[in-house]
């Protein structure tokens, strides 16, 4: 089995995609709400990814 080498960003991005799909599908009651919530959660993942990334960059000096 080949070993996959992903960067931090790629791994976090894929994590965000799949988690957002599941959270969107199971959380709400109509398809429109599911889509909106999935996009919202995905946006939150990305905001946290970039926010914490920059925080670590500046915190590291």
């Amino acid at each position: 089995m080949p070993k996959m080498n992903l960067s931090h960003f790629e791994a976090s991005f894929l994590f965000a995609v799949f988690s957002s799909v599941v959270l969107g599908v199971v959380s709400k009651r109509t398809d429109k709400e599911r889509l909106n919530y999935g996009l919202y959660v995905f946006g939150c993942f990305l905001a946290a990814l970039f926010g914490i990334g920059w925080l670590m960059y500046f915190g590291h000096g």
Partner: protein
Amino acid sequence: MAAKEKPPKEPMPPINVWLAPVALGWLVPGGGHFLLKRTGRAALLCASVTCMFVLGLLMRGAMFKPQSGDILTVLINWGGFIGDIASGLLYLLTTWLGYSQPDMPGAVHDYGSKFLVTAGLLNILVMVDAYEIAGGRKS
């Protein structure tokens, strides 16, 4: 100040209604939704959980094994083990086929372990959703 009245607790649906979707949902991610004829949602859930699990394997993530020791070791390893087995058939097939990646240092291995555990935890959410649909609490 008047105390807020709690809404009446909904009775638990009978076990024969939800057992098959929940059990199938554990074994095959999204299987419960397939059984309940929510095929679109089932396909999305199945694809997401399976992709996350397979990516974890491709990144050579380690599977957790129950361990005793200090409280943190017990929590991490038992929690991780429960997360791993919650993937159902994916976990069972992987271990039966001899996958035994030792826990190694490295960011990619670490991401892999987290992907494997998260796939199981997401599958628990999928099982809860199947339970609610089977019990008539959701459409």
